[in-house]
């Protein structure tokens, strides 16, 4: 099977879906002739024309907002936000319009829209570009939030997203665009939402993560193994829908859990993971679920970001503490 980077897998998914379904279109800043600042849409305008790969003015709210109308007209828009941080300019259109239009119109209008947005740190790009904002979209019922960690999942989840009649926020890890490479089938396949994936087996503790943090957890699990700590790694893949059963099962199986994310600590999605686990598997927990996250400070400039985002040492430390702790 061909090995692709994440950004190649995403590009392939877009191209194949535009080929398969002529309602699918892309719109956003620099998506056309440039092929996107990360080349995720490279060559698509040449292939599908300027209408279906639309270079828009620099205005995130109308990119999201026009997608509402495009979806109503029968198109299947896949807007690109150049960076997830700039969804803030479109927050009212995403959270109050795209997410709720089906509900508001009582099912009359479907919002078959997939908002793609890269994000995440470790590539020396400034605030807003790097911010991990996924938790801010969880309180927007109607919207699904998808966070692939591998090239395989990126393609399969993106195809699932575009075909889902519900709107999806599809967050792509900048750090994974070129660094993450894995086998990607050339043909059509989808990865279902709400099914977390055990990407490494282990028995002492489960590391729960999504997006770029999954790779971090896999690397740390290797090091932990050298110390005799056997880590399972659970990749959530989608935050909404959340795979509640998988979280409960992992807590039951390993009794100990550490959740890792790039977003700030307080109010990050890690809190929801913990709340869900203690609701579903309280009696299986042998230690408090630990969180490894960015501190409660804004995303900093490149010179200090290495301290800001979670690294192997911090995950290891949390693992040691969690495993060293015995049940009450």
């Amino acid at each position, binding site marked *: 099977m061909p090995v692709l980077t994440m950004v190649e897998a995403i590009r392939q998914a877009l191209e194949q879906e535009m080929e398969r379904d002529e309602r699918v*279109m892309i719109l956003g800043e620099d998506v056309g002739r440039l092929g996107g600042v990360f080349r995720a849409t490279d060559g698509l305008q040449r292939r599908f024309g300027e*209408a*279906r790969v*639309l270079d*828009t*003015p620099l*205005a995130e*709210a*109308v990119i*999201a*907002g*026009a*997608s*509402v*109308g*495009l*979806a*109503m*007209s*029968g*198109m299947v*828009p896949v807007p690109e936000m150049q960076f997830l941080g700039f969804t803030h300019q479109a927050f*009212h*259109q995403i959270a*109050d*319009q795209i997410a709720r*239009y*089906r*509900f*508001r*119109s*009582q*099912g*009359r*209008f*479907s919002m078959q829209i997939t908002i793609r947005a890269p994000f995440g740190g470790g590539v020396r790009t400034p605030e807003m570009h790097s911010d991990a904002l996924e938790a801010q979209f969880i309180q927007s*019922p*109607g919207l*699904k939030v998808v966070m692939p960690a591998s090239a395989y999942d990126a393609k399969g989840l993106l195809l699932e997203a575009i075909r*889902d*009649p*519900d709107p999806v926020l599809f967050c792509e890890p900048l750090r994974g665009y070129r660094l993450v490479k894995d086998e990607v089938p050339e043909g059509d396949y989808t990865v279902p*939402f*709400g099914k977390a994936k055990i990407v490494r087996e282990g028995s002492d503790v489960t590391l729960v993560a999504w997006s770029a943090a999954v790779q971090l957890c896999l690397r740390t699990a290797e090091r932990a193994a050298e110390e005799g700590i056997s880590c399972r790694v659970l990749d959530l893949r989608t935050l*909404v*829908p*959340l795979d*509640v*059963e998988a979280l409960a099962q992992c807590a039951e199986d390993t009794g100990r859990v550490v959740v890792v994310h790039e977003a700030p600590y307080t109010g990050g999605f890690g809190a929801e993971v913990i709340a869900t686990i203690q609701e579903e598997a309280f009696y299986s927990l042998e230690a408090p679920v630990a969180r490894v996250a960015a501190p409660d400070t804004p995303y900093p400039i490149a010179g200090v970001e290495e301290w800001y985002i979670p690294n192997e040492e911090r995950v290891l430390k949390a693992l040691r503490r969690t495993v060293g702790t015995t049940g009450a």
Partner: protein
Amino acid sequence: MTSTTIFEGGADADAYRVLDANGVLLEGASAPLSSEQLLEAFRWMLLSRTLDERAVSLQRQGRIGTYSAVYGQEASVVGSALALDPSRDWIFPQYRELPALLRHGMPLSTLILYYVGNPLGARPPDGVRLAPIQISLAAQLPHAVGLALGLKMQGDDGVVMTFCGDGASSEGDFHEALNLAGVVKAPVIFVLQNNGYAISTPRSKQSAAPSFAARAAGYGLPGVVVDGNDLLAVYEVARDAVQRARAGEGATLIESQTYRLYPHNTADDQSRYVSPEELEVRRGEDPIPRVRNHLEGLGVLDAAGEAAMQRSIDEEISTAIADAEAHAPANVTQVFEHVYANPWSRVTRQRDEFVRDAEGL
């Protein structure tokens, strides 16, 4: 609070007009509507006004929620909507355009259901080319542009009309939507109803622009100022914009200068910010007598004719209210319906639990 002599609202001297203040055709002007069309328009205006009065009283009785009246803006709303073909064109409303929605195919009883607080009241029937009422000001403008673009891409000859207020036009969404409409030449008509106020904020504090239509040039669009209390002028301007849009010539911004004769809504107290003198002057510009005079001048309406029309309107409204009130009351499952096409497990679990709890009560 000192009242000033410069009033907010009303039409500029150079706004486009067809009728004079008494409903007489201006010299050289010709009526763009036939007598039958005029009668239809007048009936919508009268229905709107009657509905406002009934709704305000229903609200006082606690039978419906907060209500924003069209009162004073009937020519502006009806004149614009008349330029559309409901079988192919679309409307994206703000919230103060009820007769436009009705004329476009929204059943009155459904609309009342909305004001009663039933979620189903927000759903335009299948085939009715209408977006739901918008709460988030100006958010509908990008939607309208997107739909217009989608129609154009699919070779559909429909056009889109969207309404917003003078207040809403200060939102960033206004700018982003009009700018995109210009670039993609979307078949969309922006009807900016400048009624002098955004709740209490007067036109003069909303923008230092000489007119809102002056903004059109900054997007490469034609902009028109029309006397929004002149039904014929509004219709003509809207009709031309629709023709241009349908012919592939892109979008138009229409500033319809009118006046909100009622408070912002049933919770508002207009006397805090509008002087009695101003209200008095603006009442004199009420669009309804102006059309009535015109129709009487044409000899197609008399007191008896209007009384009959009024009776049929009263009946229509009463029936719609009765229908809405006879509708099955809202129930707990409606909290969960239509949130997702494919709801996820937790939402389904919540629904089951909430329904069980509600039954247990």
